[in-house]
């Protein structure tokens, strides 16, 4: 294996791992406060990608309804990102309000919440299929692709942006969870929920905040995914979402650090397996590796055994 070859794959793995990590964080955040595997989260990522597609297409004047003028890239990109994160966060919050909270308030067993999440994910997926049809969508070019070649390595500017932006966002998320009052309340809920309202904190408000955080991360991942792999399909949420979910479990579900590390571990395994073996072996071997990790450490890499009390 030459160094060039290694670096090339390393960069690819960083990009792929960043997508998985950003989505995995959403699973783990919701699990932390609700002990619920939010199976609709993969489809929230899909909603993010499609929302980004519509907003981006509109702003770059490729939509049926045209703007009377062309917008420069430095307007289009931030507006697309912020608007997409906002709308996707609304979708995430709506799911929590419509589907999860009523069940929770009526004391439903967690299993029913998980099944509801699974069904809501399918609902989003097939709602998309019914509304937008089965044909694939081409994600708009938000920025011109520049290819840099250094020695035998080719890197696009998109890859670099994806990796850097992911790191930045995950850094901000880490800061919010560790240092701000909302993050501290989230952690308090995950450690002992009963005491939280008796400190004057509305648990429902913190749960909403958690969904906003997780969904906007997924939206960002959706836009970046669309930019890097511009074909959108109605079931993309399920395909990528399951992998991110497994990454979160391997990292230790409930642990944010675990979700990030898990995402990159899965990303690296998949890319490097595909580099040496036929790509049809990729997922088989990647998931065998993850199974081995779980067999050695069933709580995941950064997970702690949870007391089941209350």
């Amino acid at each position, binding site marked *: 294996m030459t160094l060039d070859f290694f670096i090339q794959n390393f960069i690819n793995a960083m990009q792929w791992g960043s997508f998985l990590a950003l989505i995995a964080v959403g699973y783990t955040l919701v699990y932390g406060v609700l002990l619920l595997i939010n199976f609709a989260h993969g489809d929230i990522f899909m909603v993010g990608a499609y929302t980004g597609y519509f907003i981006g297409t509109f702003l770059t004047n490729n939509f049926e309804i045209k703007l009377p003028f062309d917008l420069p890239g430095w307007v289009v990109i931030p507006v697309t990102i912020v608007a997409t994160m906002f709308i996707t966060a609304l979708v995430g919050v709506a799911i929590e309000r419509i589907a999860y909270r009523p069940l929770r308030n009526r004391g439903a067993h967690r299993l029913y919440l998980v099944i509801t999440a699974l069904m809501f994910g399918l609902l989003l997926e097939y709602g998309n299929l019914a509304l937008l049809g089965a044909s694939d969508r081409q994600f708009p070019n938000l920025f011109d692709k520049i290819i840099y070649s250094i020695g035998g390595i080719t890197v696009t500017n998109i890859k670099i942006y994806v990796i850097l932006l992911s790191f930045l966002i995950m850094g*901000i998320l880490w*800061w*919010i969870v560790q*240092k*701000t*009052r*909302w993050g*501290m*309340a989230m*952690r*308090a809920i995950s*450690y*002992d929920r*009963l*005491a*939280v*309202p*008796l*400190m*004057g*904190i*509305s*648990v429902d408000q913190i749960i909403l*905040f958690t969904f906003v955080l997780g969904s906007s991360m997924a939206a960002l991942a959706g836009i970046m995914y669309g930019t890097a792999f511009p074909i959108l399909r109605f079931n993309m949420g399920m395909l990528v979402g399951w992998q991110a979910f497994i990454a979160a479990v391997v990292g230790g579900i409930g642990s944010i650090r675990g979700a990030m590390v898990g995402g990159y571990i899965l990303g690296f395994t998949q890319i490097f397996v595909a580099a040496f073996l036929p790509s049809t072996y990729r997922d088989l071997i990647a998931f065998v590796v993850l199974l081995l990790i779980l067999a050695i450490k069933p709580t995941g890499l950064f997970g702690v055994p949870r007391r089941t009390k209350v």
Partner: protein
Amino acid sequence: MPLLKVDKLTHYFGGLRSVDNFNLELSENELVGLIGPNGAGKSTVFNLVCGLYRPSEGSITFNGHNLIGRYPHQITSLGIGRTFQNIRLWNELSVIDNLRIAHFSQIDYKLLDSLFFTGRLVRDEQKVTQEAMDLLDKFNLVPYVNELPRNLPYGIQRRVEICRALVMKPSLLLLDEPAAGMNQGEIGELINLVRWVKDEFKVTVWIIEHQMRVIMNICERIQVLDFGSIIAEGTPKEIRDNPLVIKAYLGEEVT
């Protein structure tokens, strides 16, 4: 006007009547005890007042506010703090962080402040940390600020929990068996602590306790609960001499 008025409070767990026609009036700066055998419904009364359970019948008024139908976090914000029978500190967070979280509703920086790390956020967080430190200092807890609660002796944990309950500046403090699991030395300290808290923070204290030494020492008035209903009420001396109470609950404990 009483600070807290509980009127004809009744609560069912399934078919079991766990609290039956419970009445209480608490005036400001009183120290009132609630005793009774295990399963008599004492903690249920606290949970009803805090809004963790919804009563089937009856009314609860605090400071002129009707508490029925309010959420626990709203009731807490009106000025009712509490501790739990089995200490419920966040064991994975340091003592100071336990107190900082309790400041949540007293801070007003917004989400955007946290995204852009504004001066307001820094100022608010510093203020909260300072207030928490001052409060911990009053409780002589400064040496433990960075410890995890689970690594502290039981008596210290209880002190931290009472301290945390006071962050919200309550006018009514509910203590649910604060002496549970304490040794005699710690119980002596607790008795002094509760008296001191009541005077220092001008709070009304309502206390559930099994340790007769605590109850008889500090309470001005005691209610005895059995099978969800009040069977006796009065001063410590009256309770001590009440044959009904001795029969139902105290047995040989008090001689």
